[in-house]
């Protein structure tokens, strides 16, 4: 059973546009929601993370929006660039837990 559901599976965005990737979870014990970015041939790397005491976190062009009541969170990439083309994974965990639960990934392609 997938603990974290991610959509869409793939996304194509024009340069300068906004990329939006959505995730949903069921386990209300989760209290840490990171996003990982993976370039082809590389391992995933932490991009940005949020905890449920805030509804939004912004780092540069990347923003996480968090809706605790709906048990959903999303990644917004503003002014998307070709260099953002990668696979993005959402994940969830709880404080003190040993492991992360990952979504199935979204392949983002930003076309010039």
């Amino acid at each position, binding site marked *: 059973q997938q603990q974290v559901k991610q959509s869409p599976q793939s996304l194509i965005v024009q340069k300068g546009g906004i990329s939006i990737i959505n995730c949903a979870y069921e386990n209300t014990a989760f209290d840490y929601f990171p996003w990982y970015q993976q370039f082809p041939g590389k*391992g995933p790397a932490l991009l940005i993370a949020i905890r449920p005491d805030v509804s939004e976190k912004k780092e540069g062009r990347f923003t996480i929006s968090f809706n605790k009541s709906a048990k959903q969170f999303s990644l917004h990439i503003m002014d998307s660039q070709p260099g953002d083309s990668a696979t993005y994974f959402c994940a969830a965990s709880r404080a003190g837990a040993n492991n992360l639960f*990952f979504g199935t990934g979204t392949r983002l392609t930003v076309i010039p």
Partner: protein
Amino acid sequence: NAGVTQTPKFRVLKTGQSMTLLCAQDMNHEYMYWYRQDPGMGLRLIHYSVGEGTTAKGEVPDGYNVSRLKKQNFLLGLESAAPSQTSVYFCASRILGQVYNEQFFGPGTRLTVL
């Protein structure tokens, strides 16, 4: 610091053969993990270790064994490879005492089982 390294980068096996994947980290992390990545499935945890000499099963442990004899190394073994084990394998590590689970990943090993 090299971070998390994995050996080998690519490997092709025949069904029934065995092999060991090596993960090494130089960050003095206590926790280490093995994941497999398959199209449309995301990252699934195979086994993990919370310290030297300890291991635990993850979500998809069947057909794999692991060992953590040294803090810096985490080995993943396939005793009798099957085509269903064709995948990209990632190792990750994280520091002890971190309340939230930030993991650092290696570059992956692409394994094909014929």
